[in-house]
């Protein structure tokens, strides 16, 4: 009985969940303290309102509708976080996901508005363009030794300005926004399979199940295939991988192009619902890709975990609109999620502490029963990455 309990905490997955929960709780707590500093009277209510999100609405049909909008915005976030975690498992930090998302959004909209393509072709165009951008980063990394974080950051801004220029040609005459997708090209709107009726929200489409399917695919590729194993081996030690006969340069490029394709795909999943039009004069890269970093790490770098973490982040972001706007601003949700990501930086440290604690306890238990195997556990517990 006692032994079972120990192995439960020893489980990597359990430790990851505990670490993520600590981040969330601490993040909310710090957010609460900030609110207290601004205005002590309504701080408690504001945090509750933010956590409630759509539950704040009275009728169940309205609740369902706003649950739907949260889901619509979670789908692209799941995909961005998948893009980042896929690359991270191969030892690459794909900060360029934001740019790959941007370029995916641009080409999805351009394909729909200028070329009148149907939705599935728009998705392919978007994923392909994201993949091209990822490949550029990959080639620069593999052959020119340019750090993927630096090239990613540069490409983020380059793609923002390129897309602003490209979409200029399909924007409304009187506003900086692109034309209304539903009015210009109905075929480009993602099919709903009746999901819109279920939620009473026309923006709920197949994007949501597709995002979940994608998460499962990424998990299978990484954990259950030889291809995924090779990629991860490259991530652990590229020189060792090369020595074992793996094409380590090719693996890096492929990884970043897959990451790019996933992020571009995510952009299509959002903009092809018609929920938002692109602002051709926007001066900052869409935050979705950066939030993806948050979701990936909060999800414990597990594809299935990132479904939940993405939903959580989107849930509090949407909930941020519910706070009393006369006292607080809706950006408190951004604040809380930024604090949570910051805390995610400490996850490795938390796991290290947890492992140490377990090792210590086991050692004590074993000493008590006078077993000689204590030495081995100590080695295991003190293992440093």
């Amino acid at each position, binding site marked *: 009985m006692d032994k079972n309990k120990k192995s439960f905490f020893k489980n990597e997955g359990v430790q990851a969940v505990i670490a993520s929960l600590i981040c969330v709780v601490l993040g909310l707590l710090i957010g609460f303290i*900030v609110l207290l500093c*601004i*205005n002590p009277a309504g701080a408690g209510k504001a945090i509750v309102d933010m956590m409630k999100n759509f539950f704040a609405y009275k009728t169940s049909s309205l609740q369902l509708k706003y649950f739907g909008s949260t889901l619509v915005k979670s789908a692209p976030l799941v995909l961005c976080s998948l893009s980042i975690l896929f690359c991270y498992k191969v030892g690459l*930090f794909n*900060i360029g996901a934001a740019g790959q998302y941007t370029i995916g959004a641009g080409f999805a909209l351009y394909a729909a508005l200028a070329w009148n393509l149907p939705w599935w072709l728009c998705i392919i165009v978007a994923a392909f363009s994201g993949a091209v951008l990822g490949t550029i980063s990959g080639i*620069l990394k593999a052959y*020119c*030794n*340019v*750090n993927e*974080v*630096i*090239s990613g*950051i*540069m*490409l*983020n*801004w*380059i793609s923002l*300005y*390129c897309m*602003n*220029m490209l979409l*200029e040609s399909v924007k409304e005459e009187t506003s900086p926004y692109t034309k209304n997708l539903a009015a210009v090209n109905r075929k480009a709107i993602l099919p709903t399979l009746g999901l819109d009726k279920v939620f009473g929200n026309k923006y709920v489409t197949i994007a949501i199940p597709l995002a979940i399917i994608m998460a499962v695919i990424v998990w299978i590729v990484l954990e259950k295939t030889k291809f995924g194993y090779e990629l991860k081996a490259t991530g652990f030690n590229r020189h060792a991988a090369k020595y074992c006969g793996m094409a380590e340069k090719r693996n890096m490029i492929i990884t970043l192009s897959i990451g790019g394709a996933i992020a571009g795909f995510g952009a299509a999943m959002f903009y092809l619902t018609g929920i938002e039009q692109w602002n051709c004069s926007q*001066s*900052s*890269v869409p*935050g979705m890709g*950066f*939030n993806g*970093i*948050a979701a990936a*790490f909060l999800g414990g770098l597990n594809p299935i975990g990132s479904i939940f973490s993405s939903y959580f982040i989107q849930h509090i972001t949407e909930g941020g609109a519910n706070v009393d*706007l*006369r*006292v*607080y*601003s809706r*950006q*408190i949700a*951004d*604040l809380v*999620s*930024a*604090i949570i*990501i*910051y805390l*995610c*930086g*400490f996850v*490795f*440290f938390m796991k290290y502490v947890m492992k140490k604690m377990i090792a210590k306890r086991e050692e004590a238990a074993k000493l008590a029963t006078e077993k000689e195997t204590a030495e081995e556990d100590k080695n295991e517990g003190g293992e*440093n990455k």
Partner: protein
Amino acid sequence: MTLLLQYTLFFASVLTLVALGGCFSEHSGVINLGLEGIMVIGGMGGALTMRYIAEHFPDASAFTIIAMALLMAIVFGMIYSLLLAVASINFNADQTIVGTAMNMLATAAATVIIKAINTAKNSSNVSSVVEYIKPKEAFMIRIGKYFDLSWFAIITVILLVVAYITLYKTKFGLRLMACGEYPQAAASVGIDVYKMRYAGVLISGALGGIGGLSYITAGVSEWKFEDGVRGFGFLALAVMIFGQWKPMKIALAAILFGAFRALSNVREAIPFLASLKIPSQIYVMMPYIISLVVLAFTSKKSRAPKAEGIPYDKGQR
């Protein structure tokens, strides 16, 4: 033409200051991706100070305004950079995640704080804009009829020289750089690596804070903090790499990048460029493209500090 020169100087001094900040941090061994966030927070400190002085001491001298605004920008920047220092030096956190989080946190925090202050003053004001029309004039020196020289350009030149001397001619600077190259070797001769890395990050916080203040006062007299600093922190990182982590080269790179940025602002005023009808986005994009191309050709023999981004492990061999 004077306008072009004026804007080039504006942007070049911002980029030099922030890139020098990055340079100090990286030479000590910590990658500072949070420069963008540090700029926002430093700028916020300076902007709020300027507004406060304008409201409460309308006849403060120009010197007082400049000194106080700079001081607060430095203090805010340094305090904010502690987030990076503590996480990466004491807790061995992943510096890329922490830096990214700091950028997101800065914009969100600045927006929340300024909205709260604005709303407390006037309940119908829910914007994140800080105005500083009057105090901003303190930063300008008019030369001739049209040319405005900003005090920041002068401050930048001074700090550039100071940074160069500190890094290459003082014991402190050489020790700092040793910590970014081979921290274990530095430790073996009695240098406290943790202290040095703290110093590097805090200096980058101070310089980033001044840079943020100089950016939000460049050409405009109010700032909407929801926008952050529009990627200038990242551009400064590019300047730093382009300048191969060396102060003088950084200054040259900053002038080049600043000129392109300035062109996008003033191209309408120059007949030749206006007639070319190149969209402003092209000019804005140029610095990023140039640095990417240059990086592609020069990164094989990178001059980056060897130990940057790697948490210091005392026992490592």
